[in-house]
């Protein structure tokens, strides 16, 4: 029966696979263009972020070049150069945002999974294989993020301005931070975080698979200890990761609860993804042992962590807004003035929608309702990462163009491919977990 289930799963994976392949091809074609653009001369780069806009810009530069006699033109050129740098960053940032977004989903799921073990949760073991499958993206996703960071470190792109020695030479604030913010240490740290997470994930998964054939609880106990260890490691490295990978994009600005803020975002995205994939698999008849009570619990987490995210967002915002210190408030000024729709829209999608839609206890059991809310939450948290990264790298010359959409499609397709591929690798119901019976009979 299990073999049959696996075969069937593989059958329907074949469909998304081909669709995603097409998307991947489209995206990678575009991707190729981007690379070509970045490497070749500046004018070419101007043309890269999409057809309509590039023409417009070409005209503008042209006009500037024609009228380029006096000081005004020189000033214009400076401005264009600035915009140019921002636009050069744009496809890279789009890539980075999407790569990080899907990576953070699988990291959030891993944290959730570890919590289930550490808390010896009785309701969730039926969902363990779904969670494990989502964390399978940690390895490829982590490598992609690491490669992107390495490319920044080797000055292929300019996402992190503190990596530019010229900038640092004229900037005392960054100079004071070079003991921490320097390229080799940055990459070593990234390698430690990623290596640690991937190692923990690997061991947890291995023990979980062994547990299927085990006769006693040794592997469960091992996983319990591993999960507890992981959570300690995770909460430290996750904070540092958020400083390194996101907060250092604005090297002058800092916030002490930034790690928690990013954590809330990745946690709620992860839980939402578990819910969406579980419901999808259930609708295809693969997870008949998952009942509405499990979905209800996941939806409660989506609801709760969405509020938690808003709480942290507001805590960070209000203190800075209230004190109004220029060096701090500049962070929000750029976001409020250059990204007003996304910045405030994010609050609607990440707070108001989940709160109103998931408040009713009965709605949390309506599967399509959870899916719709889940899609809104995921979109909202993509915007969250977008607003975290983009203002620092692209500034006011942002727009959601081909590179943004194709980056999401590329990584989204790759993510789905890896996750569903991992789902076929093992039976969808864990065996040997001491709580599996309780979980199957779970009823709220």
């Amino acid at each position, binding site marked *: 029966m299990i073999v049959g289930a696996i075969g069937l799963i593989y059958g329907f994976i074949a469909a998304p696979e081909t669709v995603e392949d097409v998307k991947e091809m489209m995206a990678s074609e575009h991707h190729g263009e981007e690379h070509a653009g970045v490497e070749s001369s500046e004018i070419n780069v101007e043309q890269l972020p999409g057809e309509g806009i590039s023409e417009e810009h070409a005209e503008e530069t042209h006009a500037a070049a024609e009228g380029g006699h006096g000081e005004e033109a020189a000033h214009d050129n400076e401005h264009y150069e600035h915009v140019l740098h921002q636009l050069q960053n744009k496809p890279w940032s789009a890539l980075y945002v999407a790569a990080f977004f899907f990576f953070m989903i699988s990291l959030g799921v891993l944290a959730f999974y570890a919590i289930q073990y550490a808390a010896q949760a009785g309701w969730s073991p039926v969902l363990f294989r779904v969670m494990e499958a989502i964390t399978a993206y940690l390895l490829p996703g982590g490598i992609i993020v690491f490669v992107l960071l390495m490319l920044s470190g080797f000055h292929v792109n300019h996402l992190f301005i503190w990596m530019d020695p010229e900038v640092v030479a004229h900037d005392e604030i960054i100079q004071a931070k070079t003991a921490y913010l320097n390229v080799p240490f940055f990459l070593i740290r990234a390698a430690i975080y990623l290596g640690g997470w991937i190692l923990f994930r690997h061991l947890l998964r291995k023990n979980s698979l062994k547990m299927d054939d085990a006769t006693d609880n040794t592997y469960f106990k091992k996983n319990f200890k591993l999960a507890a260890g992981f959570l300690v490691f995770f909460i430290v490295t996750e904070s540092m990761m958020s400083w390194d990978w996101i907060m250092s994009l604005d090297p002058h600005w800092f916030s002490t609860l930034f790690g928690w803020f990013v954590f809330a975002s990745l946690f709620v995205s992860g839980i939402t993804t578990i819910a969406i994939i579980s419901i999808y698999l259930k609708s295809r008849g693969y997870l008949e042992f998952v009942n509405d009570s499990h979905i209800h619990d996941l939806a409660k987490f989506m609801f709760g962590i969405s509020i938690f995210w808003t709480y942290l967002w*507001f805590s960070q915002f209000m203190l800075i807004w209230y004190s*109004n210190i220029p060096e701090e408030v500049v962070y929000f000024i750029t976001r409020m003035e250059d990204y007003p729709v996304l910045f405030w829209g994010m609050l609607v999608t990440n707070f108001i929608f989940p709160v109103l839609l998931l408040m*009713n206890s009965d709605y949390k059991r309506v599967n399509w309702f959870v899916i719709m809310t889940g899609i809104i939450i995921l979109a909202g948290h993509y915007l969250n990462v977008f607003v975290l990264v983009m203002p620092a790298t692209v500034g006011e010359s942002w727009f959601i163009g081909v590179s943004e959409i194709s980056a999401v499609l590329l990584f989204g397709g790759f993510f789905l491919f890896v996750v569903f591929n991992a789902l076929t690798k093992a039976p969808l119901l864990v065996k040997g977990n001491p709580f599996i019976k309780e979980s199957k009979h779970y009823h709220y």
Partner: protein
Amino acid sequence: MASKVLHAIYRDDDLLLQAVKQIREARYHIGEIYCPFPVHGLDKAMGLAPTRLAITSFLYGLVGLAVAIAMMNFIMIEDWPQDIGGKPSFSFFQNMPAFVPIMFELTVFFAAHLMVITFYMRSKLWPFKKAENPDVRTTDDVFLMEVDAANHNVEDLTDFLYKTGASEIKLIE
């Protein structure tokens, strides 16, 4: 013809839940059940209408939010305009973030307290009220079920209740 009621006592909540289902299947009418603690799923087993307390709670929360907005607007903007971190006075909206914690707290405060008070009123509980428990042991470790016996043969009903696991049965007239 005063109403005849049987008081059946159970010693275990699982047993009670099972008995409730059997008794309702046999079409006897359960008046009330006294428990020392809330029994999960008992309301559904007894066929009680779902609680509307959650709706009242939501409405109370909205009332709290409205009160907080009106209050902060009056205190901090209209009556005695305050300088909040150098933000423009006389504008509620531009000073709104500073009021969010109060809005949140009052929403929770109103929802929680008014919901509890509603619950007390709905359950007809107030200070110095005399306990209605027919048997003091229901505050300790036994469950007592009132079964309507007016239109039934008392002996048959008693036998049936013993079969469902009742440990003692009393007839109250």
